[in-house]
């Protein structure tokens, strides 16, 4: 059975706090792992490993940044569309410091506890469906 979003979000927050040595009160659902919590590229490799161990699954890390959005990072139109959707779906994110026309390299800055949790939920559901 796939855990519910709240359970996943809780687990993801704990993993992120641990991987980035951040105290629990600094990790909010919409904190940017890069801009707010100081994550560097290797931290995402670490976080993916921890997510895989915690949720007993395999995660292609390049999917992580887009959250539940399907974005083709090599297609500017797809980036624009995906980011517009994200602006609508996560108004709590600090959009004021995010570029209005984002490039591929800006996308990882969108990774939050919330976006990871949404991705994990979708990923586990897809996996469960394919096993059925």
């Amino acid at each position, binding site marked *: 059975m796939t855990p519910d979003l709240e359970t996943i979000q809780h687990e993801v927050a704990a993993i992120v706090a641990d991987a*980035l*040595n951040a105290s629990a009160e600094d990790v909010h659902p919409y904190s940017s792992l890069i801009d707010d919590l*100081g994550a560097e590229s*290797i*931290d995402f*490799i*670490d976080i*993916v*490993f921890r997510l895989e161990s915690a949720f007993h699954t395999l995660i292609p890390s390049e999917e992580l940044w887009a959250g539940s959005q399907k974005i083709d990072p090599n297609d500017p139109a797809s980036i624009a569309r995906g980011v517009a959707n994200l602006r609508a779906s996560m108004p709590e994110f600090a959009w004021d410091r995010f570029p209005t026309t984002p490039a591929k390299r800006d996308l990882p800055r969108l990774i939050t506890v919330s976006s990871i949790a949404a991705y994990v939920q979708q990923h586990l559901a897809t996996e469960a469906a394919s096993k059925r």
Partner: protein
Amino acid sequence: MPMAPNTSRRAVLTGSGVVTPFGTLQQSADAVHARRGAVAPARSFDASAFAESRAGECNDFDARPWFRIPKALKLADQRTRLAVAAAGIAFADAGFADDAAADAGVLVGSSSHDMQVPDLGRALGSLSEGDVNDADYFGARILRKLPPLWLLVNLPNMASAHVAIQLGAHGPNSTLTTDWIAGLQALGEAARWVADGEVDVVIAGGADCGVLPILYATLDAEGYFAGDAFVPAEGAALFVVEELEHARARGARILGEITGYASSTGEGALARTMQKALGAREPSSIDLLCDAALFARSHVEDEQRAVRDVFQNPPPRFECNSLMGFAMAAAAPIALALALEGTEQSVMVNSVGTMQQAATLIVDRWDN
């Protein structure tokens, strides 16, 4: 055309940072003065099955206060943590503000890295599950189950990298791995950096952890534990090595000046390094001699012979390895820091490695 080296630049020690199984520099000096021991059954792993089950461990050591960027802790094994703490202590001891390290160099001598043996075991599974010498099995297991940042924890250059990252030091940066002489060598080489005009301030010395399962297994296999004199330990002693005029200009307290240094290898290496470090100077001008390592009988005899070759009347001797264990590449720098707590004017420190590497450093105390 290369510029002429500035030969008038002298390298002095203006601060020290020490972490030993006894604790701080003061606690270590007190314990050594009272000839108290710090060797006890190893705690960081169960060493009871090994030919030597004791260790000199820094049980009360907490690296966290020294990691201004706490996230880096997960990538720091014990020698790196010891290095970062000792560097922070030394820098403050030299009278520098926290944010004054931008141009400082870092040069750490270290011989160990942790290897995370239990993590490797967990990733590989037990021997009955598959043949770890089969690359297909090995690859599949390691790639799926080993924490992915394993390499970054174990790279030999990480101690000096983390020191620089925590202090914000952009100066020359290097790690020496010349076995157990690396820490003493770092001090000698740092003096060369300063003399050569590359940098005015270098945080240099040794940080090492000998209390590692893989090292116990290796030393066990090679018979190092056959006597009872060799007990691995962990610790660090880093110094601020500074250009004399730079130190004077800021009114720094000067612990001493590095006045002699040499390294060599092969038959007779230690006698050679003592002679080269002395140069034209009279051997009788040395007031205290810090012994290299007191473990295998053959080592002790070699060292005695080398000392007799160089000194007609050997000076008083100092050693602390028999009390706190042998902190590998950090042992000689720790001995230097403790010797400088005494009153002798001229201190010679020796260090030897597993393959006949030898280094000698001479420090002359300053009366401020």
